[in-house]
């Protein structure tokens, strides 16, 4: 069964945010299923739905690395969370 996660990126808009995140995901064998994004008052707000079935390491480790990259290399906040938390809260 497909294991899905939600990645959110929030921060000041700059060149190459999506490129950097996508490169990271490709390296980890994570497939992107859907992307939606908005820019509100110069702030970049993106959500990705991804497939992490083929991820070769613990999910939490990947999430930490991704958050670290966001903070250090791009200056944005990146969170990766398994999809079930949103399903639980918003779907009956």
């Amino acid at each position, binding site marked *: 069964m497909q294991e899905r996660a939600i990645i*959110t990126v929030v921060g000041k808009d700059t060149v190459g945010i999506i490129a950097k995140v996508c490169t990271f995901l490709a390296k980890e064998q994570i497939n992107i299923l*859907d992307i939606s994004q*908005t820019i509100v008052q110069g702030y970049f707000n993106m959500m990705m739905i991804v497939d992490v079935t083929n991820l070769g390491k613990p*999910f939490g480790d990947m999430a930490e690395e991704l958050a670290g990259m966001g903070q250090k290399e791009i200056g944005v906040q990146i*969170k990766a*969370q398994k999809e079930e938390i*949103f399903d*639980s809260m918003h779907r009956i």
Partner: protein
Amino acid sequence: MINIHEVEETNQMIEKENLDVRTITMGISLLDCIDSDLATLKKNIHEKIYRCAKDLVRTGEEISRDFGIPIVNKRISVTPIALIGASACHSEADFVEIAKELDAVAKEVGVNFLGGYSALVSKGMTPADELLIRSIPEALAETDVLCSSVNLGSTKTGIDMDAVRLMGSIVKQTAERTKDAPLNACSKLVVFCNAPDDNPFMAGAFHGVTEGDVVLNVGVSGPGVVKKALESCHGQSFEVVCETVKRTAFKVTRVGQLVAREASKRLGQPFGIIDLSLAPTPAIGDSVADILCEMGLEQAGAPGTTAALALLNDQVKKGGLMASSYVGGLSGAFIPVSEDQGMINAAAAGALTIEKLEAMTCVCSVGLDMIAIPGDTKDTTIAGIIADEMALGMVNAKTTACRLIPVPGKGVGDTVEFGGLLGHAPIMPVNTFSCDEFVNRGGRIPAPVHSFKN
């Protein structure tokens, strides 16, 4: 498919409104550890707790990372020790030995608290029950993460007034015994009427004898989320307020349910219950009193407070009950004074008194919780306050509790610092008229009639 607004709402709750899972509590039965030799008993207890709970903290942290939701505490509750130690312990010191063993193993597995240094004496005390109760001041002074609770009454049995009188003195002794310690040990001691067997929250958690061998109970929280949601309801009718609280409680509980299911799967232990309590912390915005103010009160304690709390408590339950099929524990709104900045402010402003808090406990889920009182309060007065609170629980067929903290050397107008999640509190005035003759009578108060409800 999940949309960006739903994701934003969830993350907003976590990041800005202090949404968290307050605790995963592993209940462990120690009945199969019983032995008449104290050394063997201690060894059995240590081995069983270590075997069951060694992965609890790590698993909790993994779940927290996977879903991006903080899981603040990982805890253990055990079968009431008065039962477990009954055949091996012949003195108070023997029980203290078990207390130290529990404290040691709790630290070894890395949990925040271990509850169950308890006795259930709602109708009467066995010699072991009494020994355990008398050992509480020493046991709590000699340990760091151990919590103690005593069930003094129930709707079915009435109130054991001998035990109530004794606990009045024990609470006082516990405070005296730790007056030079960093933490007043009364913050880890609670008395109950109608104590639930599956409560995951401290200090009152214990693993009831009706429970299975090992069980996972989860306590959710989220007063900040409810307050934020109510900010959009200014000037609206009660119907809108109720609907908003219910929806929010539903969402919060569903997160708890997810964490509980996941913990159960990863640890290979059965899931017990979700306790859907609004448990405040001293963090700004994480306050039950602030919710009451958001409903339209100037301060918690103002006229209307009891009605507002009744509404809040009931709607939290109604929303939460749909989100999980197994709801238990205390489930409702907690009103600990020192752990809630809004309550602290109200008490400091003179808006909130012990008597008003007592009225509030008739409609909320626990009782007089984390209330600092003058250090020179008489034992019998403490017993009298406990008796009043037990009577409320007994007659209204609900759980009530008392966690009173006499502060040696301090009086009304002073404040006391507990630190961390326990917060700080202004010392509240206590009615000083005597109840000596009443509490010293001895015996029990019989169970109330269950018809003719007026």
